[in-house]
């Protein structure tokens, strides 16, 4: 087995606020191999973006603080590097693209200035060579007439074009890992299809790893090799994309799949996950999902009274399994069920998944690449003809 490109182990991040320390990331572990696309899925406040930013050490300190864990990239712990060493990693070995390209491009510099800056910084070439590299990287992302585009400003371009410029900029130094934080959320669906197609093509050519942060399960299903589902600052399920969609184990993952309207399946009523996405400033005790969990309610209805407890929820009160609420008062991470390998190559953190009690506590490491990819026809007419 080759070494993973990136392994995050038990990462813990805190932010000090006026109301004290909050813990948006509480013991996250995940692994990425070269050429792999690892999706990180979750809702607002689950810690997915904080995890991504921390890989580049872009968490502002203060108020942010790395409280524990390690982020090993090609054998080095990024959390131990000096700021100077870290600057050499950023943009060169690991690059990042963001959701809203307009806010991450500087409006007062031309596209060319911004791409060339990174190339000059990392590649030790003359400015003429840097311009050539920049032109080539625009051409690689499908922008015609790149020589002229280099002299344009971000506001002169459409949203889809700007996202291509961001990708060109991120990839101009041939990074080994690309962190894509909701790269297509702000785009229309036909432009999203273009951008994802482009990322897949570039990834294949360069054997680049991608950490794909998203909340869109459709984007995950089509692009990811491995999926990590996050909830309340922890990974609660980790598996290959096929296993996760075929056999979701955690009740939250199950709920997400059920509550999503699907094309071609006109259900009369959607199933829901009740309650609200929890706020990092007020995590509930125990398993952070128990106030919304369907499974623990069902089990509690048939369990002996001494194994259940009554909790208050947004909707009133509910009876749940005591094990899900059990909390140890020392650490903010306490009381969470651990991530265990409940099936081969399939991790979940729920007391009431099958095999959980006997499953080993291991770090999720999955070296897998999907076989089936969706077939794409560029401007094709096959299939268009009804």
């Amino acid at each position: 087995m080759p070494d993973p490109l990136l392994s995050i182990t038990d990462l813990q991040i805190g932010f000090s606020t006026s109301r004290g320390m909050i813990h948006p990331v509480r013991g996250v572990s995940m692994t990425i191999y070269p050429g792999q696309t690892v999706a990180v899925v979750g809702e607002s406040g689950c810690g997915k973006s904080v995890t991504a930013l921390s890989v580049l050490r872009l968490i502002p300190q203060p108020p942010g603080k790395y409280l524990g864990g390690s982020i090993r990239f090609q054998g080095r712990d990024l959390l131990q590097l000096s700021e100077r060493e870290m600057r050499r990693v950023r943009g060169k070995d690991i690059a990042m693209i963001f959701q809203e390209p307009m806010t991450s491009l500087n409006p007062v510099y031309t596209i060319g200035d911004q791409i060339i800056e990174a190339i000059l910084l990392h590649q030790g070439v003359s400015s003429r060579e840097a311009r050539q590299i920049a032109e080539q990287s625009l051409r690689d992302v499908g922008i015609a007439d790149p020589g002229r585009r280099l002299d344009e400003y971000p506001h002169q371009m459409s949203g889809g074009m700007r996202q291509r410029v961001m990708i060109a900029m991120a990839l101009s130094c041939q990074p080994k890992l690309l962190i894509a934080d909701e790269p297509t959320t702000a785009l229309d669906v036909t432009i999203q299809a273009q951008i994802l197609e482009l990322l897949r093509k570039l990834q294949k050519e360069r054997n680049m790893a991608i950490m794909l942060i998203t909340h869109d399960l459709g984007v995950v299903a089509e692009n990811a090799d491995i999926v990590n589902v996050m909830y309340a600052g922890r990974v609660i399920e980790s598996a290959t994309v096929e296993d996760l969609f075929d056999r979701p184990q955690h009740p939250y993952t199950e709920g997400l799949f059920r509550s999503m309207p699907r094309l071609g399946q006109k259900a009369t009523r959607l199933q829901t996950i009740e309650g609200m996405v929890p706020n990092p400033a007020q995590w509930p005790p125990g398993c952070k999902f128990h106030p919304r969990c369907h499974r623990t309610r069902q089990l509690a209805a048939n369990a002996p009274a001494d194994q259940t407890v009554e909790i208050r929820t947004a909707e009133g009160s509910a009876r749940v399994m005591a094990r899900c609420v059990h909390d140890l008062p020392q650490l903010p991470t306490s009381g969470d069920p651990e991530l265990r390998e409940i099936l081969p190559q399939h991790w979940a953190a729920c007391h009431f998944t099958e095999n959980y009690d006997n499953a080993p506590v291991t770090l999720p490491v999955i070296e897998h690449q999907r076989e089936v990819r969706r077939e794409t026809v560029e401007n094709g007419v096959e299939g268009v003809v009804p």
Partner: protein
Amino acid sequence: MTSQQTAAGTQQPDIPTQAQQPAGGRQQAADGQPLVRVRDLRTHFPIRRGVFSRTVGYVKAVDGVSFDVHAGKTLGLVGESGSGKTTVGRTILRLIPATSGSVHYRGQDVFALQGERLRKLRRHMQIIFQDPMSSLNPRMTIGNIIGEPLTVHGIAKGSEREDRVASLLQRVGLDPSYRHRYPHEFSGGQRQRIGIARAIALSPDFIVCDEPVSALDVSIQSQILNLLDDLQQELGIAYLFIAHNLAVIEHFSDEVAVMYLGRIVEKASATELYANPKHPYTISLLSAVPEPDPRPTRRRIVLRGEMPSPSNPPTGCPFHPRCPLTRKAAAEADAKDTASLVELGYPPSAMPAGNGKGVTLPILSAGETIRVLRKCVEECPPLEQKKGEGGHVAACWVTE
């Protein structure tokens, strides 16, 4: 606690009266007449330049749109940004002045009404916005936000208003004691519930839902969609449901209209449209939606280029520069009936982007020649009946 109980108590007689009103209205409209009838609606925004703000052109955001919304039913309006779907919703409610065309609500000409009669009409036609934070006044309590329309329209005041607000809050799944809180104290999903409570406060029978769930988390979206569905069942409200998410539109709508560059290019019942799309734009739009299945079966058609600017739309069929179907037809047609995209000016002069500024991705790469049917370039196809279910209309010269 007691105040909550009284609130719950008064809710019982309150809700049925709300339900009866529109239900009676539905019978009125049942004699074949649609609740809302939109005909040849156009909304053009002037583009002004220079010191004297001379009008140099128009952004044709909505350019000849016609449809009916029936009582108690949902019409889904889907399209990409810049297609004009939001402008349609706002023009119908007279939040934006129309350039031409007509909107009738129960046979009343909405654009002709003035003063008191217009104000009365507004009771019946409401809107729910995408971003619940920017559509709720941060300095008003929830109780005042929901209660204000009741006072303005002289429906309830004092303790009666309080009771109405409490029952509305309960109806949308919020604790009535929340009425003393401010918008910032709520999560996105709760704020959207508040926006819904305000919209139904006057017992309207038509609501424009402008992207009501696209700003919400996935697990919250389904809660809001179910709530809107329940309200429609109970109160008989008709929705114009505007969204860009095709799966949400399919789930929620009885009938669906697809917009491209200010026009409706296809309209059919939701089942028919998704099972049997006719317009090449609808087909590629549907194929672009990511499938939540790791072993996808459908093929994806990636369209080249982007939606052109509504200030300078292509001639003839607005979709012809990107259309795969006309290319295929042109390859088999007589040369005299076809035109080359290069001769028509694509590229080198790239088209302005859909948002009205800047340039988009080119439709052709260098040295490429693509031919399209001359008819598609010269004449705009009308929305006409296509093969399949009755009422399935599409605007395309080529499709069957």
